């Protein structure tokens, strides 16, 4: 019989991980922009990450991964970016506009690329058969959106703010409200799947998935900013979230030739 894990157990592990990271950086280790794949407080990670270090592929201009998939008007409809208009009626919840730019690390806009999102409804329930927690489904909300970035790398979604939801990492585990994002760059090396959070959520310190990003400023980059200028009077609240894709890009090799 295993003892039940409490939030106290997990919070202590989160603190240990953060301390260990601070010590690594103090000893001259580089800043870690991404979560380590094995992050013990997130129990689901334990059996699902390699023991061995990744094998570096660098300086190979012929690597297929320096190119990547493309998408176009055939792949996205005009309604895909508005999650509040995918059904006959309007979903319940706080209507929000989420917008920003997709850039590479050199600050160049990622143009015409696919951005996909998925999220829980305002009650914190996913339209997924394996989400069986007792919060209501909304017949007017599926929670899936797609769009292509514009010439400046910009994207925009209209949706409702998702609710927090419980999960079974430990007793009393709740995920802070978040929207899942999937992004493509100009190269397959830049592929990114991540989650966007809403500012000021009291659940942040308790959540091992957000806290798996042990670097504080990196973690802050997962949190959107409320932008009053984006809010539309009597209609929606505006949030801004810019996304920077990591990894070498296709143009990196072109410039090297």
């Amino acid at each position, binding site marked *: 019989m295993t003892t039940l894990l409490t939030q106290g157990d997990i919070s202590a592990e989160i603190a240990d991980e953060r301390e260990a990271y601070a010590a690594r950086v103090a000893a001259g280790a580089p800043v870690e*922009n*991404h*979560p380590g*794949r094995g992050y013990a407080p*997130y129990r*689901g*990670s*334990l*059996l*699902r*990450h*390699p*023991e*061995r270090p*990744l*094998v*570096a*592929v*660098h300086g190979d201009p012929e*690597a*297929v*991964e320096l*190119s*990547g*998939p*493309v*998408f*176009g008007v*055939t*792949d*996205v*409809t005009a*309604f895909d970016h508005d999650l509040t208009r995918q059904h006959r009626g309007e979903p319940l919840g706080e209507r929000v506009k989420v917008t920003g730019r997709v850039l590479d*690390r*050199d*600050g160049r806009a990622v143009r015409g690329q696919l951005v*996909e999102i*998925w999220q829980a409804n305002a009650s914190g329930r*996913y339209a*997924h058969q*394996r989400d069986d927690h007792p919060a209501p489904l909304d017949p007017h909300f599926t929670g*899936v959106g*797609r769009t292509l970035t514009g010439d400046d790398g910009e994207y925009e979604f209209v949706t409702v703010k998702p609710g927090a939801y419980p999960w079974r990492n430990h007793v009393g585990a709740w995920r802070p409200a978040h929207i*899942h994002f999937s992004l493509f760059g100009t190269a*397959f*090396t830049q*592929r*990114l*799947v*991540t*989650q966007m959070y809403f500012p000021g959520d009291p659940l942040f310190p308790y959540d091992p*998935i957000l806290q798996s*990003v042990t670097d504080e400023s*990196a973690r802050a*980059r*997962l949190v959107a900013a409320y932008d009053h200028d984006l809010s539309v009077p009597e209609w929606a609240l505006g949030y801004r979230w810019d*996304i*920077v*894709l990591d990894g*070498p890009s296709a143009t990196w090799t072109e410039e090297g030739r």
Partner: protein
Amino acid sequence: MSLAPTPSQTVGPFYGYALPFARGGDLAPTGHPDTITVHGHVYDGAGEPVPDALVEIWQPAPDGSRTGAPGSLRRDPVTGGIIGRDGVAFTGFGRVATDADGHYVLRTLPPGGAPYLSLIVFARGLLHHLCTRVYLPGRADPTADVLLASLSPGRRDTLLAAPDGGGAPGVLRFDIRLRYDGVHEETVFLAFH
């Protein structure tokens, strides 16, 4: 490089109604005589199949072109539903979720100008996706390919697709082992700098 990147987060357990799409693993036009089938299981460090992984593939077209083509998620103009590729353009991209048994299947055409297919694996529990390659038998020279030549034979074997015993020609097996399970070597995963 000047801008700090946005961190990765796990794809979570609930991507299934958002990311997989109709015929996502069928890059080859239906009935194309050169079609190869690449299939296998995704396993965790206990040797158990992973039923909530997502596998993506990117590869050159048979003529060696690496520009790809739009239309992987081609839409029905009336319903907006995804009807998939038109069977003419080779998009080079595919995406398939593992089934309840942790199994995935890709049907594609051999890439031109490269001996391998590029794969990315996402899963619940995986905080940052993993990149690997499927090297195709008869096309990859393990002594000439820079990556393969740098690996010990045991590690190298994890990147080689194997003809599937008893299967039809063109059927290849490629299991993905996220972590050493005490018996089987874990798959070689790659980092690009």
